[in-house]
């Protein structure tokens, strides 16, 4: 089996429009959640979200590109540009033929659906733009990355709701670890912050109207975010031979299905994914210093996740730090695992643990070290990243300091 390292990272999310800006915001415990600003927001009962501000697509993409790029594709391409620039890779010949891109998204081009349904149903139009389908399809972002960077190997998009990015990165990792491809571009994106996207979520009655406060006894629901993060997963010897900077090493993962309920989380399913990732990465519980929690801020997720972590880690559960950065950037749904992997890289590379902000009051059902409100400097060798999706589909990744 090959070793797999991360040699590039890029992002745009409510905390920043680069990795450096995002990690700085996480260290400072900034909150990227605020009032939503889009058409018909007054008809929503949920009026807050992690919306990306100061982003003008027209300043970045030309008219022809904009006719093909939904907002989630725009985010993905911007994140990919940063990641690939950092990696220093140029794809040609056999490297291009073997390298590919695996991305996660739950909804794909949600605002394209929304805009065009509005045009035909509300405005009564009988004609839509010719590129509606290639713009809204879930694999649009992966395809545009492959075209932009000449990636001709295995490429596809994974959709497992809130675990999409983790499932995608697990696949990319496996493809490189198995020796199938020397390089895989991976991560995920989501852009559901439009009227229809938020209205659909509102229906479930799990959204907070004021803040995302994971693990706090005062938590009252999740807050949506938007954005993307993209990484370059590279075979270790390939990266070493060209002297590439290694941000972290990916050492294992596991996936599980609750096979139980379409929305309620399961302690057993989550625990099997966490313990499976430890086994896959050949780790003991004591090796893990930090867990980036799924930590949505709903009553059900947070207590179930804490119970699962306590079950898997036993005595060590009190020593491991676990934080939810969703408190800062919101829940990026299919893109969330990708943005959260940045917090894991910061933990193992820089020894900085991102906090759970908005934490007000301990909940006896979430009695772990949730790194409340303030970032911490602690040397950590190994970090896990949890993602537990609606539909009971779970994926956990394990990261180690590059060496």
């Amino acid at each position: 089996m090959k070793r797999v390292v991360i040699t590039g990272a890029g992002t745009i999310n409510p905390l920043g429009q680069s990795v450096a800006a995002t990690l700085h915001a996480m260290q400072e415990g900034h909150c990227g959640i605020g009032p939503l600003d889009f058409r018909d927001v007054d008809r929503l009962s949920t009026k807050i979200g992690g919306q990306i501000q100061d982003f003008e697509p027209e300043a970045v993409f030309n008219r022809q590109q904009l006719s093909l790029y939904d907002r989630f594709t725009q985010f993905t391409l911007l994140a990919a540009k940063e990641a690939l620039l950092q990696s220093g890779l140029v794809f040609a010949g056999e490297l291009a033929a073997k390298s590919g891109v695996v991305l996660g998204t739950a909804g794909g081009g949600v605002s394209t659906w929304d805009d065009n349904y509005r045009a035909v149903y509300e405005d009564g139009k009988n004609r839509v733009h010719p590129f509606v389908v290639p713009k809204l399809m879930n694999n649009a972002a992966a395809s545009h990355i492959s075209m932009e960077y000449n990636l001709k190997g295995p490429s596809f998009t994974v959709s497992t709701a809130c675990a999409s990015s983790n499932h995608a990165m697990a696949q990319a990792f496996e493809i490189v670890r198995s020796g199938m491809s020397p390089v895989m571009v991976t991560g995920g994106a989501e852009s559901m912050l439009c009227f229809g996207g938020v209205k659909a979520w509102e229906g479930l009655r799990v959204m907070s109207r004021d803040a995302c406060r994971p693990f706090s006894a005062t938590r009252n629901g999740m807050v949506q975010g938007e954005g993307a993060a993209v990484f370059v997963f590279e075979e270790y010897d390939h990266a070493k031979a060209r002297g590439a900077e290694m941000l972290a090493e990916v050492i294992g993962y596991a996936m599980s299905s609750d096979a139980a309920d379409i929305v309620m989380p399961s302690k057993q399913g989550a625990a099997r994914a966490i313990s499976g990732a430890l086994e896959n990465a050949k780790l003991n519980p004591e090796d893990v210093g930090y867990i980036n929690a799924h930590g949505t801020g709903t009553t059900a997720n947070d207590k179930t996740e804490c119970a699962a972590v306590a079950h898997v880690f036993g005595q060590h559960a009190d020593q491991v730090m676990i934080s939810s950065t969703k408190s800062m950037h919101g829940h990026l749904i299919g893109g969330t695992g990708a943005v959260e992997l940045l917090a894991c890289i910061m933990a193992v590379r820089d020894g900085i643990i991102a906090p759970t902000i908005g934490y007000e009051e301990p909940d006896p059902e979430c009695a772990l070290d949730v790194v409340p409100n303030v970032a911490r400097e602690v040397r950590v060798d190994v970090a896990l990243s949890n993602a537990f999706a609606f539909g009971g589909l779970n994926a956990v990744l394990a990261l180690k300091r590059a060496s």
Partner: protein
Amino acid sequence: MDVEAKVIEIIAEQAVLDVSDVSLESTLDSLGIDSLGLVESIFAIEEAFDINIPFNANDPTESDFDISSVAAIVRGIEKLVAEKA
């Protein structure tokens, strides 16, 4: 519209029971309505009466809306309907 009769009809449909099996004293739990069923019932009631019910599934017991029994739900709806008028 008779609030009590309509609410019982909606809850009975959600519980897959006959309306005669749903009494004012019934709790949603005793009728076998789970958290998803509750969210669906509230949606159906909102649609039927054109009202907004203050309910957050994260904390059903502490929402402003009492769901401890069918009678409590009926009282809550009557109040919301009256406020609307």
